């Protein structure tokens, strides 16, 4: 199913928190628009992620069984938002869905998806240590790849590389 | 009864599959080993092997294309320009960093940096891993041999080409007399 159809299906089911589709567009030199290539995204409100994912998983037309990936991106150092990106896959209908939720850097907190997909568990742990996003309701919010005492969020664009770690020079 | 059956089935299966396994291992016990005794015997190394680099210094124009292409910045070069002539100061490749990805070879406009077949980076000190690629220094023996062979081949090719060109030029000369004979007849 194409993204627009998925969006319509979700809207018809009355799922809240949909903010439209972000579809690729060809470049337009007249308007100095470079265009955007690649993959279409479903823009959603981070606060309503749990009911949305539940709907995606349970609606017979969608049946997104697998949460393939949950990650974040910091598009610009001076930008105001972080993006949380979720990739879903349906085994039955063989289609994918990419979800993008914009989180303001001032309030990096969103509900955890672990109740819907247990696959989200480790992905959220990684995401939160790398970007500093708090996933509320996560059962085990420890760091996963980084040491427990690591400062800063390495994948943020404004991350400053440490000069030393426990007396070991990082230069 | 099912349990009794399974009891004896288990015994039978274990014995049978053990025998099958021992037949396979026993078969290889009697075959010739496939390994070679490494330092004495060596397997052939293919031509495309990505080993330690070698540089054709006289071709290099100090354009830094390879250094820019390197993902880890392990190539450094320095040369002083005297008009068209280059006076080389250094061309170093740090094998502590190098990951032999061959990305430096492709962008070279003069096709002068290559990867050789030598792979043993055995040194007594880490600093020795900073190889100087100039004037065959740090280049493996077989790479040198290969380079010489390639040069000879090239020379033969060029000679053949030149001969052909000369012939052609001669033909042309025959055709239209009076035109200049700058066809490149000198070899």
């Amino acid at each position: 199913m194409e993204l627009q159809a998925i969006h319509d299906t979700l809207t018809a089911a009355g799922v809240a928190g949909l903010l439209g589709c972000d579809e690729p567009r060809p470049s337009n030199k007249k308007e100095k628009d470079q265009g955007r290539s690649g993959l279409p995204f479903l823009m959603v409100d981070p606060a309503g992620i749990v009911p949305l994912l539940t709907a995606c998983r349970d609606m017979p037309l969608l049946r997104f069984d697998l949460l393939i990936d949950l990650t974040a991106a910091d598009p610009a150092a001076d930008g105001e938002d972080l993006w949380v990106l979720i990739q879903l896959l349906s085994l039955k209908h063989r289609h994918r869905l990419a979800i993008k939720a914009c989180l303001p850097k001032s309030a990096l907190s969103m509900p955890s998806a672990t109740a819907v997909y247990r696959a989200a568990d480790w992905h959220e742990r990684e995401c939160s240590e790398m970007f500093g996003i708090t996933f509320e309701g996560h059962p085990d919010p420890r760091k996963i790849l980084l040491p427990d005492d690591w400062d800063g969020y390495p994948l943020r664009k404004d991350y400053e590389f440490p000069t030393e770690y426990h007396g070991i020079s990082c230069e | 009864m099912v349990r009794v059956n399974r009891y004896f089935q288990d015994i039978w299966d274990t014995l049978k599959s053990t025998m099958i396994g021992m037949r396979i291992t026993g078969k290889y016990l009697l075959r010739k080993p496939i390994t070679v005794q490494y330092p004495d015997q060596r397997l052939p190394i293919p031509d495309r092997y990505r080993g330690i680099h070698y540089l054709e210094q006289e071709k290099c124009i100090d354009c830094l294309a390879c250094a820019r292409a390197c993902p880890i910045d392990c190539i450094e070069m320095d040369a002083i320009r005297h008009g068209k002539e280059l006076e080389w100061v250094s061309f170093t490749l740090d094998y502590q960093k190098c990951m032999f990805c061959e990305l430096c070879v492709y962008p070279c406009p003069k096709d002068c940096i290559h990867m050789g077949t030598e792979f043993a980076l055995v040194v007594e000190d880490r600093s020795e891993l900073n190889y100087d690629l100039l004037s065959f220094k740090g280049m493996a023996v077989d790479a040198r041999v290969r380079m010489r062979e390639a040069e000879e081949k090239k020379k033969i090719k060029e000679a053949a080409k030149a001969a052909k060109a000369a012939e052609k030029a001669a033909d042309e000369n025959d055709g239209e007399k009076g035109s200049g004979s700058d066809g490149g007849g000198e070899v």
Partner: protein
Amino acid sequence: MIQEQAQQALSHAVHPGSNVFVRILEWLPLPEWVPGWVITLGGVVIGMSIFLAVMSVLVMFCVWLERKVSGHIQCRTGPMYAGGWHGWAQSIADGVKLLLKEDTIPNEADRTLFWIAPAIVLGSIFGAMVAMPLSYDWWFGRMDLGVFAILALSSTTTIGVVMAGWASNSKWSLYGAMREAAQVVAYEIPLGLSLLAPLFVLGTFSLNEASAMQSGWFGMKWAIFTNPFLIPAFMIYWIAALAETKRAPFDLPEAESELVAGFMTEYSGIRWSFFFFEEYAAMLLMSVLAAFFWFGGFESPLTGALRASGVEETSLLFSVVCFGTVMIKGFVGIFLMMWMRWTLPRVRIDQVMTMGYKYLTPLALFCVLGAACWEALQHLIFS
């Protein structure tokens, strides 16, 4: 008839013969004034040295063989350099290396136990080997209950292993030790029971006598050919022996993919090599025991031929042939152990227990019963 046969067999098995120690002393030109206790002591010392040397060489050969066999099974060559021809000196080189290695004891270890454990392991297995005759005429310690001595002493190694595991103060070592204890206790039973079957047939506990009992049929009256129930009994014995010697597929005490190196995780250098030695010595012992009770011991057509041509059993030639025969049989067994090791995956601890108690023990009992019935039947028919 059987009794006659037995008496005839025993008549040449129990010839006066003598201990290797005493032989050496008899051979030495000692003056008469030397006191008796010096001779005895000297005999013991010299005898023990020879014994240790012979056994060590055999064990080292086992180690080398293991590496070659495993190598060729895996399409490799095994050791090729040390000593020249196919790395024959690899074991010696390794021994020297292990001797020179730093001897480390973990800080938190129980030093005394840590120190004693390898000695117990090696001591008990070599103690058991004393009961192993080398020929009708050559032996170190003559025992009428040789099988008992071997079984008893060889299972003492467990104490050493448990000690090592406990003393190392490492969790993996502890696991290894506990597994060893459980496993060896479980497999003592089928091992003993399956040995009972040939003991019935041969009617003796002595290894010498067992061999002599199989000397008929031109040296081919091996126990396994005389009684069909001895074939399954041998298979049970073999599996139990693998478990006793901690060989794959029963190498749970050291299971390298689960327990790192099991009870010897913390051992290094020469102390570790003691455990290693023990394993191969135990293999040799178990194979030789099988050779004595199933496969004719010293007997082979060669001994039959010698006997027919009137060579004395006490002669040097006969002894050498006997020794060679039993060693060849023993090494065939060792080779079989190695072949199995490099073929089979490891079983799990609960499966080890199940196999020991639920499969091998009842089957061994059945074999004993069957062997006894067969013997009785034979007796009824032939007498």
